[in-house]
């Protein structure tokens, strides 16, 4: 009893917890609002820069056209210089332009595959969380089976089974990247299902689908958006890996993986830039997607990004 009265009377004086300031003093709170606003602007700026950079890479082939991709035998095997930032290859083609073309193709393939994957993941996650019972059990079991095989082996198996090529890569990547998103969405739905207003709708006799559409979707869309953006780098890396080992895009469509695979043949001759520079560009793009995802997350869901 004493304990209770004492605790009830005590204000929170924990030095660790962030103090809740005084809401009354207006200069303080307006300052805080300005800072939060500032942070918001920084995040939005980051998102804009990331998006413009990635969009720039994707649309670059249409601006560059075919220039620089023709064989110029006098310019063969040039190391990086101001004229050719990424150097030239064994046919005298400009490696920066080739890399941009390849990366643009890889990004488009990766984006398409990741988007399909996100649709699958969302659908299965919603179904598992909403219907529960055996539907949930089966979906969880499928997820478990997917996790029981090494990701790359699964990718190779699927890409091979559907006949390889561009469509093989897209199907393989789309079919293997939905699992974690499905888990996240399922957990979110389960959490929402226990919310009072959803329980109420259920008691009022609303059908499951109606509840899913009116109560779940608005909460799930932000999760989905962040999940989708964070899917891109994985999808792109796996697309590049498949193309690199020769199971993905055909050598006539020089995606970034193909360009890197080609560079293998010229390694021992010391033309390092053929392998290094396109890889750097790929790494930067992947990092840009990660960065974009984190910033969108902190914009939509500030709680999870209070580092």
């Amino acid at each position, binding site marked *: 009893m004493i*304990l209770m009265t*004492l605790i009830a009377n*005590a204000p*929170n*004086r924990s*030095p660790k917890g962030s*103090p809740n300031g*005084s809401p009354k003093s207006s200069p303080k709170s307006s300052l805080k609002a300005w800072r939060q606003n500032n942070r918001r602007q920084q995040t939005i700026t980051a998102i804009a820069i990331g998006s413009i950079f990635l969009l720039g890479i994707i649309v670059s082939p249409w601006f560059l056209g075919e220039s620089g991709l023709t064989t110029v035998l006098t310019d063969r095997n040039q190391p990086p210089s101001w004229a050719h930032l990424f150097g030239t290859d064994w046919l005298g083609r400009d490696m920066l332009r080739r890399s941009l073309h390849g990366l643009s193709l890889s990004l488009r393939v990766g984006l398409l595959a990741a988007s399909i994957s996100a649709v699958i993941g969302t659908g299965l996650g919603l179904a598992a969380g909403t219907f529960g019972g055996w539907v949930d059990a089966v979906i969880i079991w499928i997820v478990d089976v997917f996790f029981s095989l090494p990701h790359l082996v699964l990718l190779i198996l699927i890409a091979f089974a559907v006949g390889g090529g561009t469509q093989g890569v897209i199907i393989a990547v789309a079919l293997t990247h939905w699992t974690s998103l499905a888990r996240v969405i399922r957990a979110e739905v389960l959490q929402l299902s226990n919310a009072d207003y959803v329980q109420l709708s259920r008691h009022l006799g609303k059908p499951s689908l109606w509840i899913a559409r009116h109560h779940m979707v608005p909460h799930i869309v932000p999760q989905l958006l962040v999940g989708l953006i964070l899917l891109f780098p994985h999808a792109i890396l796996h697309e590049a890996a498949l193309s690199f080992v020769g199971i993905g895009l055909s050598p006539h469509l020089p995606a970034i993986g193909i360009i890197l695979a080609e560079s293998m043949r010229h390694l021992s001759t010391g033309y390092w830039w053929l392998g290094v520079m396109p890889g750097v560009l790929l790494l930067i793009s992947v990092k840009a997607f990660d960065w974009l995802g984190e910033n969108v997350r902190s914009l939509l869901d500030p709680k999870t990004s209070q580092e």
Partner: protein
Amino acid sequence: MLSISNLGVTFTQYDQGLRRKQLAVITDLDLDVKAGEVVAVVGASGSGKSLLAHALLGILPENAALSGTMRFKGEILTPERCRALRGKTIALIPQSIGYLDPLMTVGGQVQRVAQLAGRAKAEASASVSKTFARYNLSETVRDRYPFQLSGGMARRVLVSTAVVTQAQLVIADEPTPGLHPDVVVETLNHLRELAVEGRGVILITHDIEAALQIADRVAVFYAGTTVEIAAAKDFLSGNLRHPYTQALWRSLPQNEFIPVPGNQPSPEQLPVGCLFSDRCDWVSETCTAERPQLRELRSGWVRCVHAKG
């Protein structure tokens, strides 16, 4: 043995946007402990009790700054001296079993405490055996993990950690909440025994009743300051000096059971005058103008201008 005067602890915090701000969580704290006595430190949570223990052991977080003086055996306690004495001369009995490593055997941990106190390995092991025997803990308990102990056993193991060090000053931080009444009595008796052996014991608690059972003197903390130091018998004889102590005493269920209205001031908005002024019936202009000094009164100490002899 230990005397603390005008202790202050200030935290430097970074608010949003990296704005620095100072939080005075302890201001003008006074306390003294003699060898062979139990001094209870009583106060609500946030009154600075646990921080006092952390300050004595030199385990305050890095953003804390100390002011005032702490003397141990006549010598000033600098942070360096705290670090040298902790675990050897000054020991802590923690609140709960959560303060033991869940993945290390109990015997191993108490042994480690003994070794840190400066004993050789074999000697440390012998002292663990002796201490465990003293507290009726069988040898097999040494191989158990914290999660395998009962509540009573856990208490005795925690007391053992202080005994194996042979520390002269023992700080027990909230040793009683959540325990079975029998275990509470047992634990308090163990603390009393430590004092009988000649150690100084600081019992940090918010349970006045428990404190009065074994304490010689009681220091009452309020909002990071000492408002009164009274003998334990003063409570029963109605010889209390400070209005907050009196209000606390009245709030006990067996007394009038009237809770003290209002809240402790937040460290962000400490009043200029007496810290208790906004909840005090005796408040006057002098109280709100200036912080009262701690003064001797009726063979105790009080920080109130209105308390009379």
